[in-house]
């Protein structure tokens, strides 16, 4: 283990200013994004979406849409070659649960039902509005704990309790360190709180989009703004039943992603449309679709129960988190795993117990956004630290420094801490914000034995 930070002068990139390579193109307006691509005979795809949050599909009538001006093709579930359930992580081991186009049921308001391919975007939109859907509304559930309660309407047969099942048949992603119940019983105080975050749309300036182009030899080139190029290629191949070598995915400059372009969103349908029409097909979300229909940062509900000693040591942290996955899994299980391993935060707590549930509700499916799973944990942890400090009447700077993790400490998921810098960061922050730390706090270090 390094005992000293490396010297910045010895490094070529770290600590040195580095210019973005594409700046010159950006300022000249010459950077080309997916939306700027044009191909001869290119068609445009627009989607008819569910207006119900949970309903059986009794009938999808596309006749009027198909007759509409400029329409070349209408696609529904029946046009998919089978194996039509997908999820973002299906190709790396997750279970597929989401149809590309709804078949028997819709599970969120905005779910894709029928795709219309036409010569112009306006013609495609006008025709998509003519698709007629007959629904039989089903009871819907919009709250994570209501969804888990007995008697809640089940969204997906595959997920009987409305929650994802983690390896070894666990309902939740679990972290277990020490004996939390015993430590809670022995603590001077117990501080219990609940934290809730709201969904957030990543809102990149360039909306989600791609263009799928037939190469003429049975292969397809897909230009996409996706953040997950290779897993998207694999997913499209899997769900369209194509060998991967029939697909070529081309990325380029992306007009902002922030996690919002990590999910599989447009590529399967656009490629299917290119196969069916033999022409290049562009499928780009409108701003409204970006806001209402693309994956958001999830809503998370976090229950924390801390065991605290009067001298400021946190001896137990028991956490139950409900991650609102929305109607389908997408990458939620991955976000929940990241969330679980973040506990107990940048602090050392000897007894940690964490359960993280991925819960299915009739809300817009959620996905990645900057610090996937981490942000809600950090939000809950730091507000909780202030509340703990208040409960025991201690300065919150002192509480954080006393509990900050150091190199060699054990994390909740049984990994020893390496390269900690929490104490030094707090000390530097205190200096910049003119906060006077007492001598004992100033002498703390991530590299030395724990004081006190």
């Amino acid at each position, binding site marked *: 283990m390094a005992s000293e930070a490396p010297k910045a002068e010895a490094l070529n990139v770290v600590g040195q200013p580095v*210019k*973005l390579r*594409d*700046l*010159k*193109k*950006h*300022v*000249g*307006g*010459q*950077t*080309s*994004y997916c*939306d*700027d691509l*044009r191909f001869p005979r290119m068609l445009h795809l627009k989607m008819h979406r569910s207006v119900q949050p949970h309903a059986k599909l009794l009938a999808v009538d596309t006749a009027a849409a198909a007759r509409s001006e400029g329409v070349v093709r209408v696609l529904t579930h029946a046009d998919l070659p089978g194996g039509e359930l997908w999820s973002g992580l299906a190709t790396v081991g997750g279970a597929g649960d989401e149809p590309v186009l709804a078949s028997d049921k819709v599970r969120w308001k905005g779910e894709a039902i029928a795709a219309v391919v036409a010569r112009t975007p306006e013609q495609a939109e006008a025709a998509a509005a003519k698709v007629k859907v007959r629904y039989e509304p089903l009871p819907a559930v919009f709250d994570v704990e209501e969804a888990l309660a007995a008697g809640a309407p089940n969204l997906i047969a595959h997920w009987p309790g409305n929650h994802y099942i983690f390896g070894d048949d666990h309902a939740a992603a679990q972290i277990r360190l020490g004996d939390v119940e015993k430590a809670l019983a022995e603590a001077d105080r117990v501080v219990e709180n609940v934290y809730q975050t709201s969904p957030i749309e990543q*809102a*990149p*300036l*360039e*909306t989600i989009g791609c263009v799928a182009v037939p190469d003429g030899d049975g292969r397809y080139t897909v230009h996409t703004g996706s953040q997950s190029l290779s897993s998207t290629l694999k997913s499209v191949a899997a769900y369209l039943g194509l060998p991967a070598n029939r697909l070529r995915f081309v990325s380029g*400059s*992306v*007009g*902002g*992603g*922030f996690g919002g372009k990590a999910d599989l969103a447009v590529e399967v349908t656009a490629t299917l449309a290119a196969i069916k029409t033999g022409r290049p097909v562009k499928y780009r979300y*409108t*701003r409204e679709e970006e806001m209402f229909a693309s994956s958001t940062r999830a809503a998370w509900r976090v229950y924390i129960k801390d065991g605290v000693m009067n001298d400021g040591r946190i001896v137990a942290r028991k956490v139950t988190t409900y991650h609102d996955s929305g109607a389908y899994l997408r990458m939620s299980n991955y976000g929940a795993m990241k969330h679980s391993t973040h506990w107990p935060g940048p602090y050392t707590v000897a007894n940690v117990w964490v359960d993280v549930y991925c819960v299915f509700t009739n809300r817009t499916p959620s996905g990645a956004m900057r610090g996937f799973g981490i942000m809600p944990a950090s939000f809950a942890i730091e507000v909780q630290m202030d509340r703990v400090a208040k409960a025991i009447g201690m300065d919150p700077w002192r509480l954080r420094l006393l509990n900050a993790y150091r190199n060699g400490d054990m994390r909740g998921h049984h990994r020893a801490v390496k390269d900690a810098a929490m104490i030094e960061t707090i000390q530097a922050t205190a200096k910049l914000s003119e906060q006077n730390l007492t001598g004992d706090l100033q002498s703390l270090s991530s590299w030395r034995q724990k004081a006190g």
Partner: protein
Amino acid sequence: MTAKILSLNVNGRDETILCDGLTTLQEVLRDQLGLLTSVKDGCTQGGCGSCSVLVDGELWLSCLAPVAALAGRAVMTLEGLKQSAGIAAIQQSFIDNSAAQCGFCTPGMILTVKALLDANPEPSHDEILEALSGNLCRCTGYLPIVEAVKDAAARLSGGADAARASEGREG
């Protein structure tokens, strides 16, 4: 027949375009006129500023402008401004201050700064914030952008010395 053919001056050339009453300037620039794709499509609702252009030197949102109303007027996009006074200094300031990340908002930002500095060569900090208030940068790189505007203003008002300094930095 509701579609009309009319003549529009774009980047110094008279162009013939086809439009109806609700065709926007943005659609014509991006799709009819040889792909002037520095004009971006971010929201189609006037909310993001990435489709900004100059109409007779005034900053406009091309996504909200009915193109049929613009017959006889002069439209400039970033593509057409290459030779224009001050544009090189603004662009260089954006580069030197790393005032672009994904780049999608950048052409609109540069046109906005051009319009600002043409009207007000020495804007205050607040005037810069106000001038940029219609342009969203979702990578949230606003601080370097504001620095770039100040830098560009200094280069342009500093005359020959500053211009030489900015050329030196270009290399």
